[in-house]
């Protein structure tokens, strides 16, 4: 107890050393004064009195030293001494210190930036209560081609009510309600959720309440919850928002709550509405799979138990509902669903940037090695004077740690700047808003700095201590034994550096190859000068339509026809078209495809599938899509005209390999005889469409995905689709037309907003934003690695050459030609580089397959990339060793010899 107290007293004392020292001095002077006064009283002369007092004290300095020893903590004291000494050493060689800190700052800064992304996207727990128990639940039907898919409302209700492994299971789907009324019409991003949704996630509202069970019943469902951001932006955060009414899609909804801005679930929403279906709603059937599910596992329940439980429920449904045959259920941690594919690429980036840091450490090691070689005598002297090896090692490590921590501080600054850039570049990254420099990131910097300091301190120690310290003291400048020891270490450093840099250049090379191939993909459309936006027509446009109608109501098609005509008349507009999906944005709808005059497959599983798009107006010409055969749709292809369709080349190749598709009859349904009895009236025939044209393939799902067979139909002859995308080709910069276009829409319907306004070029750019970020980062890391390796190599060779200066002088004096000497030095360096490349090649082969999901059109073992990277590295290395070699060979032999 007393010892602990004393320890703390000592620790505290280290923080006011000056005051304590002052007090000690005063106390000793007062002691001497008292003693001298006594001595004088005894009749001594003043000189004798002082002398005796000092003698009796045992010496002023000895007393102070003994006192200080008692005052301080021994380890702390030595550490401070080491640190002070290290700082002095650094000040003596500011150039070397600067380079070392800069190297570390680059390495640690790059790592910190990538780690802050990993931390924000992958590591930070989801902002819900006990997020580890939350699971993403899905329907699974591998045979039908969707191993992970949404579920239908009846399936969801059975799963929710009958499972035994979840405390709560809820469903949700994205919605985009139109807000109208007293405000300027606006399309919101929203989510329709089952009433238990917020309880499943375990989140509380900022104001008001979440949904009650009865609000999931049709008729009581006209309530809405707002997001804090939307409430503040649109309603100025007014406190009386609860009970206010909004017109959403024409319905009057009462605001019952506001969710805090910290709440976040799968993208950003402005409103949440309860899920409720009208009796007999077509959506509420076993044929409509559009619900996502999230569930909270019961404490103690495993995922395997839950999977078995859910599948038992699904099997029960399938026993009653034949259309559910083969549909099971699955689940995965919610965090995996949120992060998705990004996980792999982030780990690859973190590994790559870790390699950069290793190269930085290697560089630092060799830098310190050359410094310590110069300080060999100092260490030998200190060892001779009695410094223990442990004490010297501690000195080394203190110096390196101090360097590393200074580097770490600089790195934090770099990381801040880098994170800002990343946030700007990668808007598509999930949870990007959580990326930043926080406490975890700072702890990471500290850990990495210390690790880097220890790691780079290790090599000089191995090199320095193995050398016979006394030997180097005796030998003066002929440090042959020491030089040989550190020469081996230097060789190993070159190997490590080259190997690491090779792996990184290959990684960067593969990414760049892949990205340039991605950019070379012909998207199938011309993105230049095209403005796009979305329109979502409220239900009132379909009023009176029957669920059995096979074509959209006239009011809906009429709206789009009129809109196309109005916009086409605007100055600067070349052509206008409307489509159910835009290129690079979404795959579109999946439909059956059957052929007139061909035998029907044995079962419904054998019926072909295609992607389907409905268009209005001059969509193909507006998108710059080219006609391969036949004709585009024209004004005659309307509700009263005969049904027509256009195929893309992929569909023409797949379904009409040996014949001309033009004029053939197809229909987007299964053959009538395969439809279960009673679903269609006897003798009913689905409408047949005649193929009018074939167009080039367009990438809808993204540049990485090969175009699938697609069928286009005029909207007037297809399903009722309320949300459509409008494309406008312009003669002027497309953004300049935004307000004119908005004006035309609201002139037609004052309550109708336009949404997702952007140019096709912006959409094309953002579709490759993530690959671009990956490529950019890996290219930066690769270039950094190459540059660092070159600098490191240069330093090591220069050091080796400097040590052989005398030898070179002798050889030149004996008649060796400088060129031969340069050749021999470079050859030796290149031999090391060669071995490094071989090691790096093995390492790369073992590692690059981890990147395979990030690569497009390039295999992870792409030979040209490997060879090209090797050549770049060889050339860089040759240059880095040639420069110091030439300088060594150009030395005047007399000077070199006289140096001795």
């Amino acid at each position, binding site marked *: 107890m*007393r*010892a602990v*107290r*004393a320890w703390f*007293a*000592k620790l505290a004392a280290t923080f006011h050393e000056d005051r304590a020292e002052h*007090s*000690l001095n*005063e*106390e*000793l002077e*007062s*002691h001497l*004064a*008292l*003693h001298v*006064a*006594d001595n004088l009283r005894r009749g001594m002369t003043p000189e004798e009195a002082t002398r005796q007092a000092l003698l*009796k*004290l*045992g*010496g002023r300095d*000895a*007393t102070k030293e*003994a*006192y200080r*020893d*008692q*005052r301080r903590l021994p380890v702390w004291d030595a550490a401070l001494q080491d640190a002070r000494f290290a700082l002095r050493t650094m000040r003596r060689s500011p150039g070397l210190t600067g380079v070392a800190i800069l190297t570390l700052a680059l390495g640690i800064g790059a790592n910190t930036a990538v780690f802050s992304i990993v931390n924000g996207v992958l590591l930070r727990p989801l902002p819900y209560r006990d997020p580890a128990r939350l699971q993403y639940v899905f329907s699974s039907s591998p045979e039908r081609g969707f191993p992970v898919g949404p579920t239908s409302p009846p399936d969801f209700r059975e799963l929710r009510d009958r499972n035994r492994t979840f405390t709560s299971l809820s469903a949700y789907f994205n919605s985009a309600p139109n807000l109208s009324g007293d405000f300027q019409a606006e399309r919101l991003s929203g989510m329709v959720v089952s009433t238990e949704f917020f309880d499943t996630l375990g989140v509380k509202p900022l104001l008001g309440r979440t949904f009650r069970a009865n609000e999931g019943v049709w008729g009581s469902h006209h309530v809405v919850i707002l997001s804090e951001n939307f409430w503040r932006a649109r309603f100025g955060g007014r406190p009386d928002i609860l009970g206010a009414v909004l017109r959403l899609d024409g319905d009057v909804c009462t605001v019952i709550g506001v969710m805090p801005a910290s709440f976040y679930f799968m993208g950003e929403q402005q409103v949440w509405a309860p899920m409720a279906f009208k009796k007999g709603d077509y959506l509420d059937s076993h044929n409509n799979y559009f619900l996502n599910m999230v569930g909270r596992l019961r404490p103690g329940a495993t995922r395997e138990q839950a999977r078995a439980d859910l599948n038992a429920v699904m099997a029960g449904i399938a026993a009653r509902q034949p259309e559910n045959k083969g549909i099971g259920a699955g689940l995965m941690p919610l965090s995996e669903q949120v992060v998705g594919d990004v996980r792999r690429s982030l780990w690859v980036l973190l590994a790559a940037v870790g390699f950069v840091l290793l190269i930085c450490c290697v560089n630092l090691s060799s830098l310190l090695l050359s410094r310590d070689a110069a300080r060999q005598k100092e260490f030998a002297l200190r060892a001779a004077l009695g410094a223990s090896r442990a004490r010297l090692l501690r000195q080394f490590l203190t110096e390196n740690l101090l360097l590393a921590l200074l580097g770490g501080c600089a790195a934090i600054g770099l990381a801040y700047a880098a994170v800002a850039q990343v946030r700007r570049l990668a808007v598509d990254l999930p949870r990007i808003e959580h990326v930043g420099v926080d406490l975890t990131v700072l702890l990471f910097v500290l850990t990495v700095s210390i690790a880097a300091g220890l790691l780079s301190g290790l090599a000089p120690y191995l090199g320095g201590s193995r050398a016979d310290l006394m030997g180097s003291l005796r030998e003066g400048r002929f440090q042959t034994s020491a030089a040989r020891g550190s020469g081996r270490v230097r060789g190993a450093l070159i190997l490590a550096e080259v190997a690491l840099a090779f792996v990184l250049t290959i990684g960067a090379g593969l990414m760049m190859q892949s990205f340039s191939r991605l950019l070379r993909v012909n998207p199938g459309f011309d993105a230049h000068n095209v403005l796009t936006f979305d329109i979502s027509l409220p239900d009132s446009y379909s009023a009176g339509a029957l669920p059995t109608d096979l074509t959209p109501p006239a009011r809906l098609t009429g709206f789009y026809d009129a809109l196309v005509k109005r916009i086409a008349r605007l100055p600067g507009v070349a052509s206008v078209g409307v489509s159910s999906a835009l290129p690079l944005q979404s795959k579109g709808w999946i439909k059956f495809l059957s052929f007139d005059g061909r035998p029907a497959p044995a079962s419904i599983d054998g019926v072909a599938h295609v992607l389907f798009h409905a268009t209005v107006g001059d969509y193909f010409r507006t998108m710059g899509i080219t006609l391969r055969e036949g004709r585009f749709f024209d004004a005659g292809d309307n509700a009263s005209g005969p049904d027509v369709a256009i195929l893309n080349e992929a569909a023409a190749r797949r379904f009409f390999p040996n014949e001309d598709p033009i004029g053939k009859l197809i229909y987007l349904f299964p053959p009538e005889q395969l439809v279960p009895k009673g679903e269609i009236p006897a003798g009913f025939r689905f409408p047949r469409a005649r193929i009018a044209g074939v167009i080039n393939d367009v990438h809808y799902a993204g540049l990485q995905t090969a175009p699938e067979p697609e069928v286009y139909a005029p909207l007037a002859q297809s399903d009722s689709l309320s949300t459509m995308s409008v494309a406008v080709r312009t003669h002027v910069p497309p953004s300049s037309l935004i307000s004119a276009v908005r004006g035309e829409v609201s002139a037609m319907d004052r309550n109708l907003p336009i949404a997702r306004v952007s140019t096709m070029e912006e959409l094309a750019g953002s579709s490759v934003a993530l690959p671009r970020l990956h490529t950019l980062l890996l290219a930066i890391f690769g270039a950094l690695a190459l540059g660092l390796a070159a600098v490191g190599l240069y330093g090591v060779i220069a050091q080796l050459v400097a040590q052989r200066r005398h030898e070179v002088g002798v050889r030149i004096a004996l008649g060796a030609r400088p060129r031969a000497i340069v050749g021999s030095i470079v050859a030796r360096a290149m031999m090391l580089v060669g071995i490094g490349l071989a090691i790096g090649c093995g390492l790369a082969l073992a590692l690059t397959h981890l990147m395979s999901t990030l690569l497009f059109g390039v295999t992870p073992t792409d030979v040209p990339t490997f060879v090209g990277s090797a050549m770049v590295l060889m050339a860089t290395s040759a240059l880095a060793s040639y420069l110091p070699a030439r300088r060594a060979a150009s030395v005047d032999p007399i000077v070199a010899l006289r140096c001795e």
Partner: protein
Amino acid sequence: MEQKAEIVQGTLTLMILKTLAVLGPTHGYGIARRIEEISGDAFSLNYGTVYPALLKLEQEGFVTSEWGVSDNNRKAKYYRLTAAGRKQVNKEAAAWTQTTAILARFLNMEEAK
């Protein structure tokens, strides 16, 4: 030359504590003088050694110190026992008495002839 006893390890602390217990607040010089006097000049005491010992006692919380003025009007640092220090004097004195008693018994044993 007169043979003086070296101070036994650990006893200096007890002497300081006891001195403070008897004299009350005292400065370092006074403590050193007192120890020398009591021992009848049998110790060769470097006055300087009382200071680290006082600091140790202070760190352990047995004494406290403050600056004051001496009888002949000089500034000096005065040391005073704390409550814990007073207990410690009794404890250590008892332990020491016991030790010396045991040791005395050993030393008084008749040597076997």
